[in-house]
C-alpha cells in the first residue's frame, strides 16, 4: 500500500502522539491529487492495482481525520474536500466510482440500521435485507410502469409522478418499520439463535413472496423505476461538467450523503438516549433489564422497527439508483453480507460500522474485480480452474475468517467491545453475566475519560485504556 510511510497505526495510538494536523493535510492532499491524476494514467497490467490502492488510501485519510489528534478545522477540511471535491470529481471522470460510492453509502446506512438491532439491542437478525426489499419494492411498484400493470390504468404508464419520490422515502420508512413491528411481534419473544433462524426464515418468506406475487412481477422484476426530478441540481451538475447520464447518480450521491448524515445523527442520539440505554441493558442482561423496569417486548420492537426504517429508506434510493429491482437482490446472502459489514467494522461503533461497509463493498466491487482484471491480463493463459475471477467469494471468505481470528472485535471496535473481547481470554466463562460484572464493576464512573471521541460518552460504550487489555493481544 502507498500508505506505508504513514505507519503509526491509527487504531492503536489515538491518544498518544502530538498534533498531526499537517501530516493529515499533506497526506490527504497527496493521495487526493494522486487519485485525480491517475485516472488517465493507469493503463493495463499490474499498475491497475494502484486504482483501488489509491482510492482506498484516500478513503483512509478520512478515517485518519476522524481518529487522529488534529485541529478540528483540518478534520473538517479533509472531510469537506473529500465530499465536495475529490469524490464527485472521481465520479465525474469515472462513473463506476460514482456507482461504487453510492453503493458504499447505501450499505453503510444498512449496516448502521442493522447495528441498532444487533449491535445495540443484541438481537441477531439474519433477515435484515427484507426491510430493504420492502422499501425498494414500495417505490419500485409505484414509481415505474409496473403501477399501470397493477392498477390497470394506462394513465400510469410511467408510474406515478416521480416528484412523489420525496413522499415515498418517509412512506418507506413507515412501511419498513411497520413490517418490522409485524414481524417482530410474534418472534421477538424468542432468544438468541432461535431469533436468528426465524428472522432468516422471514427474510426468505418475503423474498419468496416477491418472487411469486404478480404485484412485484415475480422473478421478472420491475424495470424503469424513476428517480425524483431535480432540475436545479441537474443544471448544477451540468455547470460542473457532469455528463447527462451522471445527473441521476449525482443527485443520488447528494441524497445518500444527506440520508447518511441523518442516519448517523439518529444513531448517535439513540445511542446516548434513554432508549439506547434500554437496548444495551437488554443486550447485556434481559432479566436484569426487565427487573429495572425496561419493557422487554416494546423496547425490542422499537429496535427492530428503527433498524428496519433505515433499510426502508435506503431501499427507495437503491431502487432509484438501479432503476431495476428483482428478488435476487434481496436474498439471504445479502443479509449475511450486511451482517459481516457490521461485525468486520466493529459492532456497536458507528464509525466502525461505516468502515466495515466501505471495506466490504470496496473489496467486492473494486479490489477483487481489479485484481482479477490484472491477473487476467498478466497471465492470459492461466489454467481454467485457477482463474482468479472465479474466486471472489473464496477471498471474501478468507478475509472474514482471518479478520475474526486476528481482530474479532472488528476493525474499529467500540472501546467497550474491545475490552469485552479480550477480557474473555482470561475468563473463558460462557456466562457473560459473571465476566461482565467482574470486569466492569470498578469502572462505572469512568465513562468520560478522554472525551475526544463522540462515542466514548455513550453509556453503552464504556471506555477502557488500551494498555489495560488482557490476554493474547498483549
Amino acid at each position, binding site marked *: 500500500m*502507498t500508505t506505508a*510511510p*504513514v505507519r503509526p497505526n491509527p487504531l492503536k495510538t489515538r491518544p498518544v502522539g502530538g498534533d498531526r494536523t499537517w501530516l493529515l493535510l*499533506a*497526506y490527504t492532499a*497527496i493521495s487526493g491529487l*494522486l487519485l485525480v*491524476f*491517475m485516472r*488517465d*494514467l*493507469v*493503463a*493495463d*497490467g499490474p*499498475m491497475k492495482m*494502484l486504482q483501488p490502492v489509491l482510492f482506498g488510501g484516500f478513503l483512509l485519510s478520512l478515517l485518519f481525520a476522524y481518529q487522529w489528534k488534529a485541529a478540528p478545522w483540518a478534520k473538517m477540511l479533509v472531510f469537506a474536500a473529500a465530499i465536495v471535491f475529490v469524490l464527485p470529481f472521481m465520479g465525474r471522470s*469515472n*462513473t*463506476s*466510482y460514482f*456507482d*461504487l460510492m453510492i*453503493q458504499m453509502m447505501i450499505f453503510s446506512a444498512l449496516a448502521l440500521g442493522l447495528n441498532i438491532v444487533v449491535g445495540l439491542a443484541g438481537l441477531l437478525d439474519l433477515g435484515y435485507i427484507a426491510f430493504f426489499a420492502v422499501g425498494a419494492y414500495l417505490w419500485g411498484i409505484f414509481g415505474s410502469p409496473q403501477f399501470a400493470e397493477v392498477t390497470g390504468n394506462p394513465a400510469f404508464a410511467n408510474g406515478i409522478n416521480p416528484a412523489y419520490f420525496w413522499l415515498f422515502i418517509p412512506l418507506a420508512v413507515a412501511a419498513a418499520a411497520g413490517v418490522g413491528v409485524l414481524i417482530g411481534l410474534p418472534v421477538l419473544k424468542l432468544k438468541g439463535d432461535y431469533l436468528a433462524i426465524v428472522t432468516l426464515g422471514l427474510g426468505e418468506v418475503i423474498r419468496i413472496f416477491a*418472487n*411469486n406475487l404478480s404485484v412485484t412481477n*415475480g*422473478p*421478472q*422484476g420491475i*424495470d*424503469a423505476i424513476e428517480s425524483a426530478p431535480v432540475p436545479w441540481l441537474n443544471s448544477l451538475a451540468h455547470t460542473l461538467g457532469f*455528463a*447527462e*447520464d451522471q445527473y441521476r447518480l449525482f443527485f443520488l450521491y447528494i441524497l445518500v450523503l444527506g440520508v447518511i448524515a441523518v442516519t448517523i445523527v439518529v444513531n448517535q442520539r439513540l445511542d446516548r438516549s434513554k432508549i439506547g440505554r434500554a437496548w444495551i441493558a437488554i443486550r447485556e442482561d434481559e432479566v436484569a433489564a426487565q427487573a429495572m423496569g425496561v419493557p422487554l417486548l416494546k423496547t425490542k420492537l422499537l429496535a427492530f422497527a428503527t433498524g428496519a426504517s433505515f433499510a426502508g429508506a435506503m431501499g427507495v434510493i*437503491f431502487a432509484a439508483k*438501479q*432503476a*431495476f*429491482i*428483482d428478488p*435476487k*437482490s434481496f436474498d439471504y446472502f445479502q443479509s449475511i453480507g450486511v451482517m459481516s459489514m457490521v461485525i468486520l467494522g466493529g459492532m456497536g461503533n458507528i464509525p466502525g460500522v461505516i468502515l466495515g461497509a466501505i471495506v466490504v463493498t470496496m473489496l*467486492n*466491487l473494486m479490489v477483487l*474485480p481489479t485484481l*482479477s*482484471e490484472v491477473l*487476467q*491480463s498478466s497471465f*492470459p493463459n492461466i489454467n*481454467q480452474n485457477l*482463474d482468479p*475471477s*472465479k*474466486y*471472489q*467469494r*473464496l477471498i471474501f471468505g478468507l478475509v472474514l475468517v482471518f479478520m475474526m481470528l486476528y481482530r474479532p472485535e472488528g476493525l474499529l471496535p467500540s472501546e467497550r467491545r474491545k475490552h469485552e473481547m479480550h477480557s474473555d481470554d482470561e475468563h473463558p466463562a460462557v456466562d457473560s453475566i459473571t465476566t461482565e460484572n467482574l470486569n466492569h464493576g470498578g469502572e462505572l464512573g469512568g465513562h468520560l475519560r478522554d472525551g475526544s471521541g463522540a462515542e466514548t460518552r455513550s453509556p453503552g460504550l464504556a471506555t477502557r485504556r488500551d494498555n489495560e487489555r488482557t490476554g493474547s493481544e498483549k
Partner: protein
Amino acid sequence: MKKTALSLSILAALTLGSAHAATVVKIASISPLSGSNSNLGLQIKNGAQLAVNEMKAEFAKAGMTLSLVAYDDQADPATGTAAARRAAADKAVLGVVGTLNSGVVIPASAAVAPSKLTFVSPANTNEKVTDRGLKNMNRICARDDAQGPAGGDFVADNLKAKKVYVLNDKTPYGQGLAEQAEKAMKAKGVSVVQSEGVAAEERDFTAIITKIQALKPDAIYFGGLYGQVGPFAKQLRDKGITTPIIGGDGFDSDDLVKLAGSGANNIYFTTVAPPVDAVPAAKNAAAAYQKTFNQDIQGFGVMSYDSAKVLLQGILNAYKLNKNKVPTRAQVETAVRSGTFKNLTTGEVKFDKNGDRMTAKMYVIAVKDGNRSTAGTVNVIRK
C-alpha cells in the same frame, strides 16, 4: 519526505505504463463466475474467449491487440451493474458479451447505454431486454415470445397433447418462457392442467411427481435449465412416467443427458443453435473449445461464441468505416446494429431496430435414449 519521493515514482511509473498501450482493444464478458450459476457463466466466458482467440490474428493485422476481460456478476444485479460500469470506464473496452441473467443485463445495459457500450447477449431471452429499445442492447438468442410459442406449437401439433402440465423454475428465464408457451398452447386448444413453479435450486421433485401422477398430463412443459431438468427427468422416469418433457434452449447441454441418465428419453427442446454436426463452423468451434478448455462445448458456450464473433466482426466493420482506425464505441454500436454477420454457428445474424435477430431458424431437438436428433425446424421472422 519519503512519501513525496514515493508518489513521484508512482507518477513516473504511471506515465511509463501508459506509453506502451497504444491500440489495445478489449471486449468484456459479464457473467456469473462464482456461485451456483458459475457453471453457465463460465461457458459464456469461455465461448467469448474462444472467439477472441480465433480473431486475435485478424485484429493484429489491423494493428489492434485484442483481449478479453471477464467480469463476475455473481448473478446479482447490483454487482453486474458495477461490473458494466467498470467495463465502461476502461476506454479500451469496445463491447460486452453477456450476461446470463436477464435481471442483470436489464440494469447493466441501461447503466452504460449513455457510454454507448454495446452489449451482445447470448442468453437473455426476456422480452424486456430489447423491448426497451436501447441502442446498445442486442441479442442473438431467441426471445421468450418466439421460443415459448415454438415449443407450445410443437406440443400441440407434433405431440398432439391435450393436457399439459407446465412447470417453471421461478427465474425470469424459466417463468417468461413457460408463460409464453402456455399462451401458445391455450391458443391451440390444449388444456393446461396446472401451471406452477419450483425454486431453481430445488432437486427434490417428490411432490411434483406425485402431482403429475395424479394429473396424468400428456406432456410436461418445463421452463428451466438443464441442471434442474436432468434430475427431474431422472426422478420422473425412475417412477415409471414416460410423459414427454419439452423446454427451451436452457436444456441445450450434453450434461442434460448425463444428469438424466437412463431418464434421458422423450425430451424435446427449442433452440437457435443447430446440432453441432449440422454446421461446419459449429464443428470447428466445438473442436477448438475442446482443445482450449478440455471440455465439450455446450449451449451457452455456442451462443456466447457467436455473440463475441458478432461483436468482434462489428468492431472490424467499424474499423474499416473509420478509415482503418480504432473505432469509437458509438461506431461499434452502429456497426453491430446495422451489420450482417456470417460464418456463425447459429446461422446469419442481422438485428432489427430493437436489437433482436431478424430471422432465425429455430430447431426442435429431440433427446431419445441419450441421443439427440432434430425433430423439426421453425422459422422465426421479426419485422
